[in-house]
């Protein structure tokens, strides 16, 4: 029988939830209008009728799903609105679609985004409150027992929140491609940020110069991302699919394109994509989102081009190519040396790190100290102390891959800790799936 609609080679599940009634503030880039034109384009294309593409509605994440990942002050109940629970819940729904084999891959086109949300949360940061990818990953680990997961963050901004959450986890490979932190928020993501003492070499940062275009991204994918993934052999690949590398994005300075994004996803072949940033809402998002969907579905994306697309316009100068090649070499070196620093760190038993986290939306600083309690048998648990002008968190966090000894030690330490006023004292045990505060 003649087919009157195209057929996707891969069964692809989509959640398209533009949240037309939610914004950070009416003129903020993260406003109601952001996914309007994307919705209009995807619906007009008839994607809902394409064989093997299925649209799903989001569901609401539970606060337990949030507390499994984050340490919220004053609490996840107080910080999150229904909109946040929906955008997080959408990632859980697509995860289930993939894990239950309803679909081969899935894309959650939702807002608000999440990759700037760190483990401790005191408010909105870089348009994000909670890290929707991390919430999804820990949900998958909890319900499906998946261990090794790779996150490739292709948003223009460094995925500092995701990096923070998985910094000391050798089972989560985090690769971020972004505009150099010296030129853009959040100002991090340098090659030297390469993972905590138990997971050094499992955080790979690829800071790219402003104006990087298709050639630069192709090079990074080919020389670094794909070879590292081949070596790491993740059970799942997640793409934090921000689209603000686009040449028309108003808040960044890159030269990436819809064709480029589609090709990148075709090569990466992620199991799940989660939309992150992207603020060229008319000139980029309708095309980049469509390009990514078609690439995931295994369909022809060659006609997905911005109205003013001209490949020749973005040919990259020789010098830039050389510079990016240098970044690639250094990043590969980081991965090659992975795990080597753990032995040295084990001698110290506890390694401390201190950092300052800036919350840009309302403008305050958090002083955070992380104490990595190292263990020869597992990545160890972490003691986190974070202080904002209004609240304080003191928590013991046990990763999903902790050994029983570390799990017990963390619980004992939590039990012995005296609660202090104005301080959230918490035990977050991902092995037992427990979140307790006092």
């Amino acid at each position, binding site marked *: 029988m003649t087919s*009157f609609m195209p057929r996707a080679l891969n069964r692809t599940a989509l959640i398209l939830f533009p949240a037309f009634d939610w914004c950070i503030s009416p003129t903020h880039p993260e406003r109601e209008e952001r996914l309007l034109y994307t*919705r209009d384009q995807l619906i007009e294309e008839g994607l809902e009728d394409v064989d093997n593409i299925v649209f799903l*509605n989001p569901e609401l994440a539970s606060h337990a799903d949030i507390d499994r990942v984050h340490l919220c002050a004053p609490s996840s109940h107080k910080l999150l609105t229904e909109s946040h629970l929906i955008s997080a819940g959408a990632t859980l729904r697509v995860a289930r679609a993939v894990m239950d084999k309803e679909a081969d891959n899935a894309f959650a086109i939702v807002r608000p985004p999440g990759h700037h949300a760190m483990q401790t949360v005191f408010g909105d940061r870089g348009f994000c409150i909670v890290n929707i990818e991390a919430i999804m990953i820990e949900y998958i680990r909890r319900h499906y027992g998946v261990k090794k997961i790779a996150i490739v963050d292709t948003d223009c901004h460094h995925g500092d929140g995701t990096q923070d959450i998985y910094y000391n986890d050798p089972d989560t490979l985090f690769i971020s491609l972004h505009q150099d932190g010296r030129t853009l928020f959040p100002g991090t993501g340098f090659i030297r940020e390469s993972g905590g003492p138990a997971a050094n070499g499992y955080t790979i940062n690829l800071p790219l110069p402003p104006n990087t275009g298709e050639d630069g991204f192709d090079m990074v994918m080919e020389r670094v991302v794909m070879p590292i993934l081949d070596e790491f052999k993740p059970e799942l690949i997640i793409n934090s699919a921000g689209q603000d590398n686009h040449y028309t994005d108003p808040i960044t300075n890159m030269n990436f394109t819809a064709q480029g994004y589609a090709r990148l996803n075709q090569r990466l072949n992620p199991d799940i994509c989660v939309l992150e940033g992207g603020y060229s809402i008319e000139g980029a998002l309708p095309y980049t989102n469509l390009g990514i969907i078609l690439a995931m579905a295994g369909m022809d994306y060659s006609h997905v081009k911005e109205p003013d697309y001209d490949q020749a316009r973005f040919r990259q100068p020789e010098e830039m190519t050389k510079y990016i090649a240098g970044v690639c070499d250094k990043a590969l070196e980081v991965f090659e040396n992975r795990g080597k620093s753990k032995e040295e760190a084990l001698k110290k038993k506890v390694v401390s790190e201190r950092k300052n986290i800036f919350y840009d939306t309302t403008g305050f600083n958090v002083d955070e100290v992380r104490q990595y309690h190292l263990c020869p048998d597992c990545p160890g648990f972490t003691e986190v102390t974070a202080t904002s002008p209004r609240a304080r968190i003191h928590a013991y966090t046990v990763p999903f891959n902790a050994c029983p000894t570390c799990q017990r030690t963390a619980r004992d330490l939590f039990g012995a800790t005296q609660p202090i006023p104005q301080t959230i004292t918490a035990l977050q045990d991902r092995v037992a799936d427990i979140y307790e505060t006092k």
Partner: protein
Amino acid sequence: MIIGIDVGGTHADGVLLEGARLVAKHKVAVDQEHLSESIISLLGALVPNDRRQLERVHLSSTLATNAIVTGNLDPIGMLIQAGPGINPDFLANNGPTWFLDGAIDHRGHIIRDPDLRLIDEAVAAMLEAGIKSVGIVTKFSHRNSLHERFIADRLGARFPHICMGHQISGLPNFPRRVYTTWLNASLTARFAQFEKAIEQGLTQLGVDCPCHILKADGGTIPFARAIEFPCESVHSGPSASVMGCLALADQSEDAILLDIGGTTTDISLLVDGTPLLEPYGINIAGRPTLIRALNTVSIGLGGDSTVAFADDAFRIGPRRSGPPMAQGGTTPTPTDALVVLGLLAVGSAEKAAAAMQCLCPGEPPADTASRLLTAFAERISQEVAAMIDSVFSRPVYTVSALLQRRRITPEKLIVIGGPAAALKQSLENCFNLPCLVPTDYEVANAIGAARTQLTVQATLYADTADGRVSIPEISCLEDISNRFGMAEAESKLEQVICGIASDMGMTGRPTIDFLERLEMNVIRGFETSGKILNLKAQIRPGLADIQGEQP
């Protein structure tokens, strides 16, 4: 008085109603090749002696549906302009197609005008091929119809029939717009002939009242308008049956409607008493369309369906292989079970019992029969549950809509069709809901056709930053001021719908529902540059008010 006629595959039913009262009913055999003659003969038996008493004739026609099924369509040419997006080559599988190279974006902005040479080449090729009917569709023509109209103008009078996508529906979905336009163009000439034959017949009968055609959405349009939009007459059978159920068993809650026939069961749903519509339109001949239609599901399950028993389960349908065994057939059917249980008095009770023995040798026939009926009802119930699920999963785009979603919770079953009364108990047991079998249900479809009123749908897209409003259904593309707001948009759309309704002969002011209302600030560079307003409104499918009767 109103005459309602429902044409089926083998026969046509007609009724003459005075208000809600059934004055006369009649049935004739139908010859699909000579459809208009069958209809005229049926009309002849129904027209009241005093012709002036007849207000309207409502006709559900199988002409379009049959033309599609038999592939008996006019050769047409499609001019398609896709612009950036999915590779549009698949749209050419449909038939002779010429792609143009202009582009319109999601906001209705013109990116590039189509190359005139390509249009002219297409025209030459179509003339050469003897094509008389042309369909023109551009992507986003519901936002901006300029290109479709420009191309149509360029074709001018060289083609007798030109169909433009934006006039058929203001809904998004480009492939559906293409297929709907194709279907419409393919039916135009054939439908015009049919209309002429019916008009002549009516004149001969001395009838000069308006004649309306039943649509798939549970509404009607005047015959004259159906000539322009013949695709609207497709698949009106289920719509007659749903409206018939409504007419015979008025209902204001959520309910399940079943039309159980010999080989199929049609299922539809009422939400707060209103029949549920498809989000876009029905699928016709493997093509998704924008033809507004009631959400009905037809399953291959009926009184005469073949039944087999294996692995401790009944397999019912989807085929029919001859009559029930009680009536001399060779395979067991649900009808045999009804006969065994004394619920239906047709044919031989002994042969019916033998049918049950065939299925489960050694078991008491009555036990087998009642288990079979339970299985029959369960099959319907699964299908209903799946429909309710799929309605619940329709995409929503706002937080409030997601949080307020309500699952349809039927309070009642309304069942028509041959085995309806006999199956009442089984259905009630299975669904645990009261089951209503209206009287006169054998002419429910014709009554449905008679009692149905006009439906209209229109959409409005206003962009005050661009200073323009589009109402595609009437090819409206007008300038607006930057103060144009929701209240104005609503009243403009209301006026348009009232205008269309009154052009179609509706007297009195219709009730208009707003199905979608989106208002969005357009922000550029931290400043509000305007507003986008997107509205969809309708005259919902319902029964015409009856004079002198309290609603």
